[in-house]
């Protein structure tokens, strides 16, 4: 059984895993945020997610700019599969698909441009360095890789889409993360740090390197009852400036963003949960002038399968994802 599962996962990762794209456009999904608290031993989690995002406001520094040459939106679906290999080690992978990644222009006669298709592949491995069940404290570290095996260099009517509309980032990325969680009865407080480094894209058409990404998230969660919980997340995001050919710095790239992400989590049935969480930017500082994300909302379903014994993931893990 164990060997079969391992073969399944290896095949799955090689053949199908895809994930989110991240690009110079605003509001693309950020990787590595699924099931950050680790997965219980021999528990399999399957989580399909849908996300809608809209970006229509330009910022110069932390000031809103009145220009509006274009606006973007996307509809993104993904599926995440995670498995607890042993009590401390877990593995997680994601596949994602952009239903659309659309840019509309405020230019006469310019038609909207739409990219669509599979994004990148992502695999994360998490290890619980500290798992103290008496003090309800855990410290989990993780490393991950994002493989640019999705759709890149996409064309519409023989015209290549700009890099911001390509479904795949086109870049091999590595990430590392640390997660800490402390429980206090019905409350949970958590912290997560995340860093991602992108390799240079060197495709037939594009020569580009995304700036490094650093994230810090503070979570607080409360179990209203056994079926409903609430999570509030404050996320700080720092992205460095990008580089184009000949190491030229893209001055209007990167910046800082603070978002508020409230989440309601409902467990309507055994081993099944529904989560809804908007992504609300509360502070933006953009290098140069850039389009920024206005609003995003996600709907996530999670089904757990306990392959070890009759022990439910949702009852144990409470609310923090």
């Amino acid at each position: 059984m164990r060997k079969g599962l391992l073969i399944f996962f290896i095949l799955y990762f090689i053949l199908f895993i895809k994930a989110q794209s991240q690009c110079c456009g605003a509001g693309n999904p950020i990787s590595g945020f699924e099931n950050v608290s680790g997965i219980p031993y021999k528990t399999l989690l399957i989580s399909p997610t849908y996300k809608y995002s809209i970006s229509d406001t330009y910022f110069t520094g932390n000031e809103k700019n009145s220009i509006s040459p274009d606006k973007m939106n996307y509809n993104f679906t993904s599926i995440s599969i995670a498995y607890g290999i042993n009590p401390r080690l877990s593995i997680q992978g994601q596949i994602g698909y952009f239903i659309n990644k659309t840019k509309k222009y405020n230019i006469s006669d310019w038609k909207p441009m739409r990219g669509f298709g599979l994004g990148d592949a992502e695999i994360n491995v998490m290890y619980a360095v500290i798992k103290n069940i008496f003090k309800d404290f855990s410290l989990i570290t993780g490393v991950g890789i994002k493989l640019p095996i999705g759709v890149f260099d996409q064309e519409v009517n023989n015209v290549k889409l700009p890099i911001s509309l390509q479904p795949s980032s086109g870049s091999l990325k590595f990430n590392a993360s640390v997660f800490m969680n402390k429980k206090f009865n019905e409350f949970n407080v958590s912290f997560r740090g995340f860093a991602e480094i992108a390799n240079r894209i060197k495709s037939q058409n594009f020569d580009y390197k995304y700036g490094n990404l650093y994230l810090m998230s503070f979570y607080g969660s409360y179990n209203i009852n056994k079926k409903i919980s609430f999570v509030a997340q404050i996320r700080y995001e720092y992205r460095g400036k990008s580089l184009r050919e000949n190491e030229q710095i893209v001055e209007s790239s990167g910046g800082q963003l603070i978002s508020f992400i409230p989440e309601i989590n409902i467990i309507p049935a055994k081993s099944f949960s529904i989560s809804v969480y908007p992504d609300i930017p509360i502070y933006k500082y953009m290098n140069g002038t850039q389009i920024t994300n206005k609003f995003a909302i996600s709907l996530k379903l999670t089904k757990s399968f306990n392959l070890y014994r009759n022990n439910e993931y949702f009852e144990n893990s409470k609310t923090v994802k």
Partner: protein
Amino acid sequence: MKKRILHIFILAGLILLFACKKDNDSSSDGTGEVEIISLSAADTVLNVWVNTKITVVAKGDGLEYSWEADHGELNGSGVQVEYMAGTCCTGINTITCTVSNNTNSDSKKIKIRILPF
């Protein structure tokens, strides 16, 4: 023994035959029946979010036109497209047009400078 060596040579020959492929897209001088006569832009120095028309003139039968920009955005199709770039894409950008038919192709590039915002 000789037969085996002969088989190896035949196999190697077949592999080499199929491994070699003519690179039609790399030509910038025009080959065969397809040739780009000119590739021009109405403006080659632009402010951000200001668009310009880029036109290709080519000769050949049954031509298809492909366009790509290393930075910035293209809109339209065929012999004429429009180009513009936002703040992400200031600097000297390259637009490539490839004209092709069933047998041949030709490519040309044009550079457009996008001034800082």
